[in-house]
């Protein structure tokens, strides 16, 4: 293993090397450092790095801890004490976190090394990182295309071997969709499984932190490191977290996988539909029982989500008032002008749109028609999934209806961008868990673009969800495919 090849290893492989003392944590960190400084200018996965602090941590790392000595990249809406937490917003351009989020505290306790913060759509609002106020993250498979979002920086970093693994946040698919578009694994745990303390809130009833990794085992290892109850998050579930790796490798013969007829819809790219159909056949060949299921409220999912998510966002983002932290407008003429200009200058266009939409659906006269009605439809969607999980162990679908699109292609039409969240949103509305794994490629204009396969599992059923995803992954070769920008192993070069 040469230092040049090291960034291409998985977390599990790196742990093995660390524990056999073939590589030190500092060497692993240094290999990433070189890799990032060489290629990230062309990808834009990271917003900040602090190798200095990380080097000290890596020198003291106990490699026998669960994630001992493993560098992990962190989405820049999760607070790491002393580091920037910009949320890719002008509002927080100069902000430095004063405390560690619970997930960071837990990762550190598990021995992980925190070294850098990754790009996102501003305040995690978007599906492409084009809403980042700092830059757009490009897709390592084709740099004329987006990496997906909002955790696009984390996804591109892992796909381009600029990180062994990363954390993201998923409010409507923001971990799973960029993972799908970048050809890696991304997981949204059950709502409440992972503490949100220290995650900058977007929509509090939907947000959940999750891992992005090169394979399912790594995702499970990371989830082990961050899951569990937290007295500092009142929405965290009072349930001890199991070992999410124990069911990996178990047979999936006889497990039931649901395919919803409502998921055969217009707008799904034919190459995506073909790859997912082939994946379903493959699951059947592994002994899974394929079951036709019904999700009758699918057509209302996106509308309900965007009413609820923007309503919650409009309330959460009211805290950015330019008083205690963040941007403040110069020389305000009175308090109203202070607020209005601070927020006009601090927020980008998508955040403004969502605050306005959310304020509108909560305002007197429209509350019942939009917000309350969307909450009732959320209840109906929960009912759909409660029925489905009496019949099946997992639901399979595309992660995104389309592969990675061109930078700029969809920016002008927010609604088209929102509609592409159709497959990922239900997990957030209902609180269940979901994972995206690579299942093939689409050939588009000469580019080879990854396709993501999504499995949804019932609340708290992550171990079985990962078991099914692992069985699929390990019996196919899709996860081994590397983007043109990935590290080419030295022996293959010779």
């Amino acid at each position, binding site marked *: 293993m040469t230092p040049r090849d090291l960034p291409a290893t998985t977390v599990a492989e790196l742990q093995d090397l660390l524990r056999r003392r073939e590589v030190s944590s500092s060497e692993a960190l240094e290999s990433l450092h070189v890799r990032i400084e060489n290629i990230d200018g062309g990808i834009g996965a990271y917003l900040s790095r602090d190798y200095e602090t990380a080097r000290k941590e890596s020198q003291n790392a106990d490699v026998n801890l669960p994630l001992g000595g493993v560098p992990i990249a962190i989405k820049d809406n999760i607070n790491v004490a002393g580091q920037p937490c910009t949320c890719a917003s002008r509002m927080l351009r100069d902000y430095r976190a004063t405390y560690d989020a619970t997930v960071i505290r837990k990762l550190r306790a598990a021995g992980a090394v925190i070294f850098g913060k990754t790009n996102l759509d501003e305040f995690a609002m978007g599906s492409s990182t084009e809403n980042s106020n700092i830059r757009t993250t490009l897709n390592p498979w084709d740099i004329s295309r987006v990496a997906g979002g909002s955790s696009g920086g984390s996804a591109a970093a892992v796909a381009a071997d600029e990180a062994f693994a990363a954390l993201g946040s998923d409010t409507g698919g923001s971990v799973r969709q960029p993972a799908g578009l970048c050809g890696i694994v991304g997981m949204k745990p059950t*709502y409440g499984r992972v503490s949100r303390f220290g995650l900058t809130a977007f929509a509090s009833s939907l947000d959940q932190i999750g891992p992005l990794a090169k394979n399912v085992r790594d995702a499970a290892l990371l989830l082990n490191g961050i899951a569990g109850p937290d*007295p500092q998050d009142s929405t965290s579930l009072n349930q001890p977290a199991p070992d999410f790796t124990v069911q990996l490798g178990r047979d999936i013969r006889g497990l039931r996988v649901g395919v919803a007829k409502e998921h055969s819809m217009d707008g799904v790219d034919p190459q995506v539909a073909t790859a997912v159909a082939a994946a379903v056949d493959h699951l059947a060949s592994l002994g899974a029982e394929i079951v036709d299921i019904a999700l009758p409220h699918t057509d209302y999912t996106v509308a309900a989500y965007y009413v609820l998510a923007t309503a919650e966002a409009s309330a959460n983002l009211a805290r950015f008032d*330019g008083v*205690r932290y963040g941007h403040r407008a110069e020389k305000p003429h009175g308090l109203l002008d202070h607020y209005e200009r601070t927020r006009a200058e601090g927020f980008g266009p998508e955040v403004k749109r969502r605050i306005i939409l959310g*304020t*509108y659906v909560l*305002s007197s006269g429209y509350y019942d028609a*939009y917000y309350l009605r969307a*909450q009732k439809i959320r209840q109906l969607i929960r009912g759909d999934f409660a029925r489905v999980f009496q019949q099946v162990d997992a639901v399979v679908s595309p992660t995104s209806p389309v592969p990675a699109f061109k930078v700029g292609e969809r920016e002008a039409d927010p609604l088209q961008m929102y509609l592409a969240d159709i497959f990922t949103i239900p997990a957030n509305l209902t609180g269940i868990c979901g994972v995206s794994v690579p299942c093939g490629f689409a050939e588009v204009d000469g580019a080879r673009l990854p396709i993501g396969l999504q499995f949804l599992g019932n609340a708290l059923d992550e171990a079985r969800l990962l078991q099914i995803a692992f069985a699929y992954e390990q019996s196919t070769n899709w996860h081994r495919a590397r983007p043109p920008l990935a590290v080419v192993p030295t022996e293959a070069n010779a």
Partner: protein
Amino acid sequence: MANSDLDVTHVARLARLKLTDAEAQLFQEQLAHVLQYADKLGEVDVSGVEAAAHAIPLFDVFREDEARDWFTPEEALRNAPRQANGLFVVTKVVE
């Protein structure tokens, strides 16, 4: 649902956001389009359905009411846009 009622400038004011004329015009158009789509929520029969505020049932969580270490005043002020004498300096509220 009468989404033609959406007056972006008025709602932006409620949300304490100053919009330029160009922004107001663009958002008016884009959000009217989104709301037109959201009108499909009206097609669903929701009579007798309870509203779900959360994905899962949530309960109050209590802890002992005791002092613990948290931010020092210096840490709390570290990101303040303006500060003086260990306090946040705010924009004048009363003339």
